């Protein structure tokens, strides 16, 4: 079955994969069932570790033979020394984090590059939904009702990029894309309107 979720993941996964150097060390925060790490281990021969809060997801990662660490990302990454990893990935996870800036700082403490996917609140489709319905709907929120959804962070691509400066993080590379399609572009012109996803490769400002 090719569900919409699978299509979104596949598009994001292939963009992430292109950034990863073969044989590098990768930490995947909020790794879920380990599908992305599995792909990176197979195709890029990376040494990968996942971090996940849900025990059922931990069980699935173990079944895949992926090393996984049960923890709440919001509590920091104190388990790892500075610059342990080449890449620290936060894919489809930033929207559930209470302290995104602290987590991003931690990512760039334990790793050289941070790779973060952001669902664009400013996407034209979302603007139309809010305009017509006058409320947040499940297409924007992705899961749950307003009072029980784990999705608590709504950020547009432009606001995300602006806030990087406040915490001395440099944008190294970016993709703006429409998840359901195969369209992606490095040009940021009108991306805040036309792309529903952004993928950012970040490093600490030197």
């Amino acid at each position, binding site marked *: 079955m090719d569900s919409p979720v699978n299509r979104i993941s596949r598009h994001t996964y292939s963009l992430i994969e292109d950034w990863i150097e073969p044989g590098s060390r990768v930490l995947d925060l909020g790794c879920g069932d380990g599908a992305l790490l599995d792909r990176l281990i197979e195709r890029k021969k990376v040494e990968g570790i996942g971090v996940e809060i849900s*025990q059922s997801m*931990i069980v*699935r990662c*173990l*079944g895949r*033979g992926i090393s996984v660490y*049960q923890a709440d990302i919001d509590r920091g990454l104190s388990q790892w020394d500075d610059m342990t990893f080449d890449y620290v990935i936060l894919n489809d996870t930033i929207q559930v984090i209470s302290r995104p800036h602290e987590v991003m700082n931690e990512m760039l403490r334990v790793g050289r590059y941070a790779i973060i996917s952001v669902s664009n609140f400013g996407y034209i489709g979302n603007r139309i939904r809010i305009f017509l319905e006058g409320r947040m709907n499940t297409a924007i929120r992705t899961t749950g009702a307003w009072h029980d959804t784990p999705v608590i962070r709504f950020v547009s691509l432009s606001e995300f990029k602006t806030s990087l400066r406040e915490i001395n993080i440099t944008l190294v590379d970016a993709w703006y894309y429409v998840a359901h399609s195969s369209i992606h572009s490095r040009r940021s012109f009108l991306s805040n309107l036309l792309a529903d996803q952004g993928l950012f490769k970040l490093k600490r400002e030197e």
Partner: protein
Amino acid sequence: MQKPLVETRSLLLDRPFHLESGDSISPLTIAYEIYGEDPGTEKQVILIEHALSGSAHAAFYHEGETKPGWWDDMIGPGKAFDTEHYRVICTNVIGGCNGSTGPSSINPVTGKPFALSFPPITIRDMTEAQRALLAQLGIDRIRCIVGGSMGGMQALQFFSDYPDQFDSFICIASTMRHSAQQIAFNEVGRRAIMADPRWNGGNYYGDIPPEGGLSVARMIGHITYISEHMMQEKFGRIRKDKDLRAIFRPSFEVEHYLDYQGVSFVRRFDANSYLYITSAIDNFDLVTSISGMGRFRGESRARGTRLTTLETKKGLVISFTSDWLYPSEQSRAIVRFFSGLNVGVSYAEITTEHGHDAFLTDHEQQTHLIRSFLESLEHAQ
């Protein structure tokens, strides 16, 4: 369903068995049990390590008994350690009192129990004795070594000393070294035994053993094995009688519970073994032991260095949220250490109110984790 039966077997090593202290024991008896033996089929071996008061009887039933082994929820057909797929072995530690040579065994030189003339033992001595047993059984490769609490210490020690012999380890509710608090609890237990006049410098065999002291030691242990929340839930302030003059006998439910734990323990455990084994636990320090011996190339050299033999190894570390005796932070330190040596270590923290004892009682979540972990090892072949 018919109860699966098992017998404790023993191996007699008639050459001197050398200990870390420089002493040796001769002859040495090692008690062990095997589950899932299937003559004619090639099965991978799982090695089970028991905790302080455990024995070789980890699973199945002894003839005529109604209670199965101490980890029967985890070992058997369709269970975490599936005896349909694996040959599972558990041995009693040396220094113990359940079949392997310990202070209550007869010293062949004097014809009397060793008592305190028994040499001090270490966690490594326990695993070296198992190595001697495995050699006798013709087993040179272990799919997974697993243990909780002191069993976890043995698993880490054995795996670290001979990484080539193991594909993986599972370490549950354990630590690489005891903290001051953990040593302190053990010391109070030891003092309770030694303060009992019946202990008599360890010479009580053939007489009434120091039951009072040993049961107090066990009571202290049991307080640390369960969580405050669970104790409150289970007993609260419930009492059988409200006679205020009853201060010299158990009245509160929790007192009855501890009394029962203490009394039933003295029936099956030797006080001197308790002293020897808790000392082995307190003296255990994995990092020092493996760097000092030069067998494992030491932490300092190994950290950040790629050890090719270890890169293919897997580890699973499990802790429990309410375990205050072996807190999760100690398990995370194990993960840090072995990750630094490039072992593919995973970590799971099980949410439970059952405290340290959860490794014996919370089998469902452990089973999910362990079965997935073991399955992935099969695919890696």
